[in-house]
């Protein structure tokens, strides 16, 4: 194709946008909303994964051993727990060790007081361990609870549990909303193209008679769709950036509350800039082009 023809097609594409201002604007808006929703869903999922991963890494399960269990039984118990596939970093924290650590933390006065009234070591032997897959944590702790000699199993905060079910629900809802919005975008863009085709029906009619190829007739509409798509991606990106950074600043501020839940550990927008930008632009251009081709296919039968 000649450069002059290419320029011509680009100009025709932009003319179409201008001629069809209202419809084009509607396409732009719905696409903008869709992209922001898509971005929101992706960003929340990524960060949920990170926060959950973080909690998984930090949280230890404590298995308290009954008082009257012998040293041999304790090592039996240790092998049994070690054999569970979902357990890692198993460590025996003996009562002697625990007492020593406790004494070390006390002030002199506290220590004197303690030694005066407590004859026997009151602390239990415990195992500390980590859970590999936190989604199966409840099964694992329940299993450990059935072992002989186990007094109790203390699992970490249930916050991880809540996050995990939230992630599951969020994922389903997000996919449903995103799919619906993408569908609506496609319909509206294809209607915009239809209006554009209608506005140019005389030209198209002549083009067909003089032997313009189908692709030549379609290219301006594609350009129209792509430009709207890319514009919407650009704006969606900016809006997402500001919104995200607002939330990010709140969560990473000095309030301890968010830190406790590990929520301060989310990604910064800049660290996700490249993948987010690329997915926005690709999604915008893609939805624009597909929406356009739906109606050019139907209305440009030559």
């Amino acid at each position, binding site marked *: 194709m*000649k450069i002059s023809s290419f320029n011509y097609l680009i100009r025709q594409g932009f003319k179409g946008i201008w001629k069809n201002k209202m419809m084009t604007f509607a396409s732009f808006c719905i696409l903008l909303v869709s992209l922001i929703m898509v971005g929101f869903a992706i960003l929340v999922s990524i960060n949920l994964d990170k926060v959950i991963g973080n909690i998984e890494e930090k949280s230890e399960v404590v298995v308290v051993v009954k008082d009257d269990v012998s040293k041999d039984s304790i090592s039996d118990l240790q092998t049994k727990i070690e054999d569970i596939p979902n357990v890692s970093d198993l460590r025996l924290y003996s009562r002697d060790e625990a007492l020593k650590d406790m004494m070390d933390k006390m002030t002199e006065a506290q220590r004197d007081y303690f030694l005066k009234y407590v004859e026997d070591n009151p602390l239990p032997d415990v195992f500390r361990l980590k859970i590999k897959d936190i989604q199966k944590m409840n099964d694992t702790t329940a299993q450990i609870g059935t072992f002989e000699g186990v007094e109790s199993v203390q699992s970490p905060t249930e916050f991880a549990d809540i996050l995990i079910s939230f992630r599951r629900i969020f994922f389903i809802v997000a996919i449903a909303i995103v799919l619906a919005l993408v569908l609506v975008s496609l319909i509206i863009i294809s209607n915009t193209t239809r209006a554009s085709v209608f506005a140019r029906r005389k030209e198209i009619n002549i083009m067909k008679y003089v032997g313009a190829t189908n692709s030549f007739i379609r290219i301006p509409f594609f350009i129209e769709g792509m430009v709207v798509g890319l514009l919407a991606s650009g704006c969606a990106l900016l809006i997402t950036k500001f919104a995200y950074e607002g939330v990010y600043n709140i969560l990473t501020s000095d309030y301890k509350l968010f830190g406790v839940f590990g929520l301060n550990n989310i990604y910064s927008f800049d660290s996700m800039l490249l993948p987010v930008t690329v997915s926005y632009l690709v999604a915008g251009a893609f939805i624009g082009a597909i929406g356009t081709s739906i109606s050019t296919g139907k209305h440009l039968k030559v």
Partner: protein
Amino acid sequence: MVEFRDVSVTYSSGVDALNKVNLKINDGDFAFVVGPSGAGKSTLIKLILKEIDASTGTVLVNGFNLRKLRRKKVPALRRTIGVVFQDFRLIPTMTVYENIAFVLRVIDAPAKYIRSRVPYVISLVGLSKKAKSYPTELSGGEQQRVALARALVNDPQLIIADEPTGNIDPELSYEIVELLKGINECGTTILMVTHEHDLVRYFGGRIININKGSIQFDEVIGGSNEN
């Protein structure tokens, strides 16, 4: 060259528009197609442009067998044909120059060629002074001359005109036919549909008369302008 062999067309509505038509128009010919409204004249033209396909029979145009011609190759066929319609079909938002240049652009012609070719065909139809006018600023006869220049700009082998004088003043009709005759003398085949018998009688030449989908007669007659 246009050749019809036993061509019939039945529209999906059940109307038999053409019935076993046999017809041959050689390169360089000038032929009038006449007949009453509904005779099948436009159907003939739609077949040549492959807007529709023959229900039975074979249509050959400029070396293309239209039955075998794939959809993708239709543009190649149409680039060998110039078309003129009764209603001009000019684009109102484009000047005379743009209306014509547009045709070359959409078939991907070089910009340099467009810049020299368009003024040339505009001069051929005598509208050089109106190149920058819009269609609404022109008379019917002038608009049809623009349409003629547009049909011509691509240097087609064949020009088909479906009642080109139907929407313009009778005295200006002669002008249009004169122009077509001039184009024909340079070697382009012309097929002109009309139901203006005065015009046909005046110019004479090959007359193909269609009625109810069949060719009634196909003869060469002398024109009254020649004596």
